[in-house]
């Protein structure tokens, strides 16, 4: 394993600087694609979840996808979704 040759602090970009931030959450967003406007219409529409996600981990795709490795479970997407297509669901703990 090569040692650090930096003379001063040089950070290089990579995801997961704080680890798998998906581990932070106690609730995760679940999308009902029958209600989600862009998923249904398969065209650029709404995407307020993409707009308001602080992490930028909601994909502007059809169907809309959320990167659950990193989703912190803030719930903004569910709160802002106009047709209420997103529900925050409790994560199941290791203890069952």
């Amino acid at each position, binding site marked *: 394993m090569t040692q*650090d040759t*930096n*003379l*001063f*602090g*040089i*950070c*290089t*970009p990579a995801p997961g600087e704080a680890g798998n931030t998906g581990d932070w959450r106690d609730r995760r967003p679940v999308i009902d694609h029958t209600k989600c406007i862009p998923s249904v219409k398969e065209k650029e529409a709404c995407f307020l979840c993409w707009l308001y996600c602080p992490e930028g981990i909601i994909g502007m795709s059809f169907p809309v996808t959320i990167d659950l490795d990193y989703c912190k479970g803030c719930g903004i997407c569910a709160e802002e979704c106009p047709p209420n297509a997103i529900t925050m669901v409790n994560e199941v703990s290791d203890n069952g």
Partner: protein
Amino acid sequence: MDNVKIMTGNEAAAVGVKLVAPHVIAAYPITPQTKLAEMLAEYVENGVLASEYVRVESEHSSLTVCIAASAVGARVFTATSSNGLLYMHEQLHWAAGSRVPVVMCCVNRGVGAPWSIFNDQQDSFSQRDTGWIQLYCRNNQEIIDTVIQAYRIAEQVYVPVMVCYDGFILSHTKMPVAIPAEEEVSRYLPPLTPVRPLVPEDPITINPVFFPWRRDNAEGVSCDGYMDMRLKLAKAINDARETIREADREFGECFNRTYGGLVWDYRNDDAAITLVSMGSLASEATVAVDMLREKGVPAGVVALRSYRPFPKDELRALLGGKSAIIVFEKCMSYGNGGGFSSEIKTALYGMPDVPPCHNVIAGLGGRNVTPSEIADAVMSARGAIDDGHFEETYWLGCDTD
């Protein structure tokens, strides 16, 4: 063929900076540095110096500007004195820790409270632990030459360098100064090679928070914790000893003037009593030594040119076996006696037959120190040593009863 002009220490520094031609200059005026900042502004406005001159609103900002400009790959310069240096204190630590090759002139002046506009070395002395290289000049020729050498040193070891010279005594006093030729300076000082300048194509974030422990990066390389990174700085300053000697030696080859590297001495080889000092006070001490020698006292001078890194090996070689050492210092380490006299003693730790060491606090707040006062103090100290006092401290010219 060097061009000789009569000039003040501030002007010598300004001409030195003009020869080096840094990309960015940031300075805030403070007595007795002011004229240096003004002369540089004039050079820039008259088009003889192509630097970006940032007229900052404080000293803290002047060093901040320099650190940031250096981070994008610019060569930089700033200067200050006294409370201005104290105001930028956190940035001194920051510059050293970010390993930027900043060069700064410190025109030595006493610190408040109470206010003094006059010379002593408390300002730069009190910054000795920040991780900067500190070089002290004995006359105006040394100022212009050391400014040039400072860039050579800083840009090789990536440690910032403080070029110190006494306020008023040197900054405002005219002396003949040979001005190095511009082409020679360009030959002596290659262009700056920044370690990793900030550019949009390289999206790094620099000088972040560090954990105490090591941590792998995304490629699996084990990266430093805070302490490891700081150890690198410590090593770099230690390694700088050789760089400082080499820079001085090569300067001698280009310009026919050298300054002793880390220390210089005067009539010390056959001296029994050695006076130790820094800066212009050491220069005055050589006159005192001549006076003492006239009276048959075998005295000599050893002067610290480099205070950081501390020239321990040189001091052991030059002071070992002396009958007495008298340190003349323009600074205090309140709570532990004189400024650097304790470091002189520590340098001799473990040597057989350590000489008695007396120290004289002199010239604080600009109180005048003449060669005859220095000579008298040496005679007094010698008397006290003969009476069996191994260590003593005197405040020259003060009523201590």
